[in-house]
């Protein structure tokens, strides 16, 4: 086949990129080679637009064992334990085929974690859909949720936390981000870097089929009206095979047979083989006839570009093939030696005794294009709306409306479709600020959470970037965990648009500043660009997944009220700022002004004080104040208990709406028994932490004198209404 301009374009490569390929090869590539280049040079695999911004993120710290650049990040949690974790997007495939797209997103991220020797212990997800009224939302939502559950439930890893949001910005481009967390002994970590000459390159797992060919290139382009035609590029998942692959790999990892191991994810056999030898400064020769194939007459091109799932590439120590093969046969999996490492520094592809492709490894990896794309700054928007100019609404009515809105109503109808308890170490399930997973047979635990704030990031990316890191940090603090490190999934629009590229650059700047200040490094992540359809870009949606450590699981705490007569304190200052709040959006459909300001030093000071109160066992419950403000935070504390709150009339602010719905940052709610109140006050005052009494816990009612008195049961019913209505017509 002649390589014409059209063939080049179909591979997602720009004319100047093609010229560079010819220059690097010193000749024209053949079709197979072009395919390999396109798989390695697309945005998804090469990070060509994002790389120069990513390198500014703080990635080091005293707990960091492995930062970005490996299959996943690794942190030290003391003794000989380490946690391996990463988040990844599967946005494009999930929009085309929601069940399989979401399922294989979960499968892919799990492989990244167990490839490193870790047994996965938790799954999380962050899923964003278009407006609930949009014609596609119901089927996409149903498909994605069953896909996530279908995979995680079957393989037997608990899905413990997540977030589901609706916004018309995702009408034509949903976001499906999956995060996996694993546990490994520090001396049993496996890496992808190849070492040694003439070592066997082994293929294990499922057979290779024609599914997912060019999946990564598809994920590197915008959608248009022909997106449905892309269905064959979506992979099909088989969680049962993944379970077998996981057990087989973990069994093989018990001894020292493996030199390096890499999962075949995006760009399949191509990227796994290239990445391994690129890191090891070696070459690799693959005998493609030996690749186990599911379909007949597969070509080298198809084998190299297939994204069939549940496959791994392993480089084995000499003489270990027999033992290793026995393990994979026990688990009924394919095992084939398909090549060897070489000193040529080339990727050499052989098929039927002929060399069908030969490319220098550096041309595919280190010489991939890097772009410093043009970007523009987003100015801090001015506040135009004043609450006094808006039509008056009763506090109670506003609260009930928000509680029954898609974004703020109960999401248990989603999480009830996930097995949250398998492995029996889930000490706190979804619905709280963060989930808690005990380290098996130990006293310690980790807390995990994922967060995003697309509206804030859209209004002012720099502030938004800081805010999500802070909110994530706060969520971990709220369950009694010391935040250790994060992973990020950066979902943005088309980087060739300077406004979008600016959103990316400035969100990253915000993330960097917050992470540096809070000593909260980024150890892994994923970038998903080109989220949009026909030039309409999604809101910038970076998603942060955080891990915190609870050294003694008995110190864990939740948000639910414990006893009448206890006092509720608000920690952190309330400035009554309503810009970009849920209140304005839900009640008046107004999206206006700057996001709430971030004061990193207050954030840190308040958070560390809360952690001290928790560890000293001076507070009975803790909840962070986030979207929906103070009042939503208070209502969320009344769920799952028979207690309500009698609110104290606020003294400082004249406007109740500003007081109760403001989303000012760095705030928490704590419940304190009468016995502990003095000690709590002392610690807060000593640490210069602003606090005020908000109310007292009482039985059954949530009330504010002269305003409302609502049964907590009725609040909970309202919290469930949206689901009941929506579910009525989705199932």
């Amino acid at each position, binding site marked *: 086949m002649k390589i014409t301009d059209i063939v080049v374009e179909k591979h997602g490569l720009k004319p100047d990129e093609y010229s560079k390929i010819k220059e690097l090869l010193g000749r024209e590539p053949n079709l197979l080679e072009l395919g390999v280049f396109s798989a390695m040079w697309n945005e998804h695999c090469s990070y060509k637009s994002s790389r120069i911004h990513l390198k500014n993120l703080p990635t080091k710290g005293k707990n960091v064992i492995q930062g970005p650049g490996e299959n996943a990040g690794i942190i030290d949690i003391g003794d000989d334990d380490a946690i391996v974790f990463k988040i990844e997007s599967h946005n494009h495939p999930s929009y085309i085929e929601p069940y399989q797209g979401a399922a294989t997103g979960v499968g892919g991220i799990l492989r990244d974690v167990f490839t490193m020797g870790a047994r996965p212990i938790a799954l999380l997800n962050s899923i964003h859909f278009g407006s609930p009224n949009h014609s596609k939302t119901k089927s996409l939502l149903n498909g994605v949720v069953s896909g996530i559950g279908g995979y995680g439930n079957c393989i*037997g890893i608990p899905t413990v936390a997540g977030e589901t949001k609706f916004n018309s910005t995702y009408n034509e481009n949903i976001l499906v981000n999956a995060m996996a967390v694993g546990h490994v002994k520090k001396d049993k970590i496996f890496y992808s870097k190849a070492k040694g000459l003439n070592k066997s390159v082994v293929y294990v797992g499922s057979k290779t089929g024609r599914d997912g060919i060019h999946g990564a290139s598809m994920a590197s382009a915008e959608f248009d009206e022909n997106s449905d035609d892309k269905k064959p590029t979506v992979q099909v998942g088989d969680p049962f095979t993944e379970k077998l692959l996981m057990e087989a790999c973990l069994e093989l990892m018990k001894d020292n047979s493996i030199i390096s191991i890499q999962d075949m994810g995006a760009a399949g056999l191509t990227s796994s083989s290239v990445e391994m030898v690129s890191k090891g400064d070696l070459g690799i020769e693959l005998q493609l006839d030996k690749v186990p194939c599911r379909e007949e007459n597969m070509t080298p091109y198809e084998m190299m570009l297939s994204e069939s799932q549940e496959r791994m590439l392993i480089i084995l120590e000499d003489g270990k093939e027999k033992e290793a093969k026995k393990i994979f046969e026990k688990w009924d999996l394919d095992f084939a030696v398909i090549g060897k490492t070489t000193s040529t520094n080339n990727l050499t592809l052989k098929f039927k005794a002929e060399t069908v492709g030969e490319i220098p490894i550096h041309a595919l990896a280190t010489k991939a294009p890097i772009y410093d794309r043009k970007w523009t700054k987003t100015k801090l928007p001015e506040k135009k709306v004043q609450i006094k100019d808006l039509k008056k609404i009763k506090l109670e009515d506003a609260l009930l409306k928000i509680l029954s809105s898609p974004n703020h109503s109960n999401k248990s109808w989603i999480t009830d479709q996930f097995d949250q308890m398998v492995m029996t170490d889930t*000490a706190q399930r979804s619905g709280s600020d963060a989930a808690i997973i005990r380290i098996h047979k130990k006293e310690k635990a980790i807390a995990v959470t994922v967060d995003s704030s697309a509206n804030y990031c859209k209004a002012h990316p720099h502030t938004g970037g800081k805010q999500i890191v802070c909110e994530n940090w706060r969520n971990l603090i709220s369950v009694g965990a010391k935040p250790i490190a994060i992973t990020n999934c950066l979902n943005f629009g088309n980087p060739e648009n300077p406004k979008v590229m600016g959103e990316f650059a400035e969100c990253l700047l915000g993330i960097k500043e917050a992470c540096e200040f809070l000593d909260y490094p980024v150890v892994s992540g994923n970038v998903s660009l080109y989220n949009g359809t026909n030039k309409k870009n999604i809101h910038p949606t970076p998603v942060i997944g955080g891990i915190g450590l609870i050294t003694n699981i008995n110190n864990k705490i939740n948000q639910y009220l414990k006893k009448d007569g206890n006092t509720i304190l608000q920690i952190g200052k309330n400035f009554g700022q309503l810009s970009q709040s849920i209140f304005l959006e839900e009640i008046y459909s107004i999206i206006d002004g700057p996001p709430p300001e971030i004061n990193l030093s207050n954030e840190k000071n308040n958070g560390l004080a809360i952690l001290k109160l928790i560890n000293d066992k001076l507070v009975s419950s803790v909840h962070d104040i986030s979207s929906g403000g103070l009042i939503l935070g208070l209502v969320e504390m009344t769920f799952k208990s028979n207690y309500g709150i009698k609110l104290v009339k606020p003294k400082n602010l004249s406007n109740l709406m500003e007081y109760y719905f403001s989303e000012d940052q760095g705030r928490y709610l704590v419940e304190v028994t009468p016995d502990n109140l003095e000690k709590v006050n002392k610690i807060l005052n000593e640490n210069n932490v602003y606090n005020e009494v908000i109310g007292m816990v009482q039985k059954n009612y949530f009330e504010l004198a002269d305003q409302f008195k609502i049964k907590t049961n009725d609040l909970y019913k309202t919290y469930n209404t949206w689901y009941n209505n929506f579910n009525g017509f989705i199932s």
Partner: protein
Amino acid sequence: MNSSVIVFPGSNCDRDIAVALEKLKFKNKMVWHKDTDLPKSDLIVIPGGFSYGDYLRSGAIAGKSNILNEVIKAANDGCLVLGICNGFQILTETGLLKGVLLRNKNLKFLGKDIQVKVINTENKFCNKYEKDQVLELNIAHNEGNYFTSKEHLKKLENENLIPFKYCDKDGIINDESNLNGSLNNIAGIFNDKKNILGMMPHPERMVDQVISNQDGVNLFTSLLN
């Protein structure tokens, strides 16, 4: 007491049940599905999960595996057998228990804490519970909707072969608490001799206060009685 946990490819509650059994002082062994010998056991547990991916039909392939022949022999000789979730599905596939487990009535996976009422305590598995005691256990299944013939259902009721029924927090057995749609709110059943118990809820997930509650403990300690 010696227990054996059968491990199929795709079992995923095998470790959980082993942890629970060991915590409650059973001497436990794991038995791989390709094995043809069963260690000497007083109790055999078929754990939850997705044996063989639950392809074809939940439990169908596992029901035909090597080790199941040994389990059937032992069960017929009176050995105690406990099938939880997928284990219950497998037991119905082998015929050791009658009836079938259909898709949940809402056609969705159900993963949540539910209440069951202890209907019958005069058996090996429930003698440490009080009659009518309400337990909070966890379910996690796609196919837990128990169905059987009218005659068999009558026999189950008349001969006290139903140890657990789904109920609400106050112990009332009603439609609202019957999430998967099982006949008569059935959460678990015995064979005629009451040495084989199949149940959809997971007792092994409720043996540790730090994680959940301890409502599952007495099922295991009853066996030691």
